[in-house]
């Protein structure tokens, strides 16, 4: 029972990082109907830049985190300007957008490789202070609590941003119908740029948390989360933000549970991708389907 509880908690922690990553994925999909495969590369660069700020510029992680997140957000705007904006008028923009995002993913990853090298790196010891708490056999570290707090905070901020602010409402309007939004006088290009900024900033934040949690960062770390992120957003319903959070947690739990039950990590991903495959066959709209999406 204690082992089970411990796994449940671990699953929640890693699931909140998956959720944060997937929210960025799904936000762009909800607004533009484009799968942004450069998102994992932004995730990687976010983590690596935060590491550089801590190690090279000797900033505290609490200063490095917002700066790296800002950087990731700016990468998102760059991404939109270079890879997506020129294709927007094309009839097959979902397809050409997918391809150009792959191109940008390759370019970003090669930049990460060229600047930071191919080796696996980690945040220096003591970057975050470590307290370990034990409750009746279950261990929780302060890092885990901080990760969940940051993830929850960002998601709450995102939700209230989308519902309370003018830009947030404009983003939801564009997601509903780009044409109508344009007719109503919304500056659609600016709204899309904002969407990319937010999406990529969240991706970068997820990268930093991921690097802290697993204590390792490398230029290809995006690949390990890329497909998981897809599974998460399909599970939750493409374009649905609550769905992505729910899907992230469910995915994190399924991972640790599979490991706990089978005793090996080999089948960890198999369960997730089988579920992904089956969901697409049985209920392509995911857990919280398209009707909910547009409400974001």
């Amino acid at each position: 029972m204690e082992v089970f509880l411990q796994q449940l908690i671990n699953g929640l922690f890693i699931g909140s990082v998956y959720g944060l990553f997937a929210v960025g994925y799904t936000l762009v999909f909800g607004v533009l109907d484009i799968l942004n495969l450069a998102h994992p590369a932004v995730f990687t660069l976010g983590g690596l830049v935060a590491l550089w700020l801590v190690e090279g510029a000797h900033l505290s992680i609490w200063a490095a985190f917002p700066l790296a997140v800002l950087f990731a957000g700016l990468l998102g705007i760059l991404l939109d300007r270079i890879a997506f904006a020129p294709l927007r008028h094309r009839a097959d923009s979902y397809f050409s957008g997918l391809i150009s995002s792959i191109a940008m993913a390759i370019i970003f990853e090669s930049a990460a490789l060229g600047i930071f090298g191919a080796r696996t790196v980690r945040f220096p010891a003591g970057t975050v202070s470590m307290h370990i708490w034990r409750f009746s056999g279950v261990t929780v570290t302060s890092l885990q609590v901080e990760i969940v707090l940051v993830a929850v905070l960002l998601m709450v901020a995102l939700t209230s941003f989308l519902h309370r602010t003018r830009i947030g409402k404009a983003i939801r309007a564009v997601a509903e119908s780009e044409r109508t939004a344009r007719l109503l006088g919304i500056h659609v290009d600016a709204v899309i740029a904002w969407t990319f900024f937010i999406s990529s900033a969240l991706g970068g934040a997820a990268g930093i948390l991921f690097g802290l949690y697993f204590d390792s960062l490398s230029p290809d770390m995006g690949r390990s989360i890329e497909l998981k992120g897809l599974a998460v957003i399909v599970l939750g319903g493409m374009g649905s933000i609550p769905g992505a959070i729910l899907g992230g947690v469910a995915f994190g739990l399924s991972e640790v549970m599979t490991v706990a039950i089978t005793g090996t990590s080999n089948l960890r991903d198999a369960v997730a991708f089988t579920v992904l495959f089956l969901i697409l066959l049985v209920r392509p709209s995911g857990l919280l389907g398209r009707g909910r999406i547009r409400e974001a």
Partner: protein
Amino acid sequence: MDFFTHFLAVYGSLINFIGINALLALSLYVTLSAGQLSLGNAAFAGIGAYSAGVLTMHYNAPFVVSIITGALLAGIVALAIGLPVLRLRGVFLAIATLGFGEVVRIAAVNLDITGGAQGLVGIPNKTTTWMIFLALAAASYFIARMRTSRIGWSFESIREDETAAAVTGINTTYYKTLSFTIGAIIAGLTGALYAHLNYIITPGEFGFSAAVNLLIYNIVGGTQYWVGPLLGATLLTSLPEVLRGIGVTAGPIRMCVNGVILLLVILYLPNGLVSLFGRASARKTKVRADSPSGEV
């Protein structure tokens, strides 16, 4: 003749890989020509490669039997998953086939008969260069002929507008499944040839990045005409050698060049490099058509 033997000795393996990649690119081309974005063709190649390799190594099957079984098995799996999966459109189909590809890869990692994560080692080397290029020529001929057949027209009309195609009486499910299965058979055949070329096959070779590479070959070459994928595969497979020739040895730069080429093509040449030749000849015919009036 001396020059030729020398050339083969130095670039023999590169030439083989060009042939293999061109075949794989063609396999995806068939599916793309019916408008279906599949990212499962690398997995079909994996099914072909593993089944042929296992047959040859564990059951002492003759080479021809292994190859044909590999191709057919890939085709049968495609038929089985094609019927349910092809109901999905666009990005959803891509994600579903991606999920399928991951399941295949994870299966190869976990099964004993496939040699696990180390891969299948010690497959007898039976594939020769002429076999690869014979298969390539046959596949190209078949696909070129298919284009002007009933099947080819059906594929094209589904690609242009699936609903309209269905309305004109085309059995879209049948033709979509056909395009998926033909693609898988070609991929399985190629995988089987590759297994007997390379001595060793590992699950990672047939994963997500391989699937994306096939897509890149097609996009860079062009998806309107069967020469496109051949051109794309040849160009991008030999690019590292060319770059090495001009003194670029750094990995990140080579990777970056790939990304930049893909980005430029999707932004400025949506129909691929082949359209450059198309444009040139179109201009020529136009000039010829105009010339009588020009001479006056």
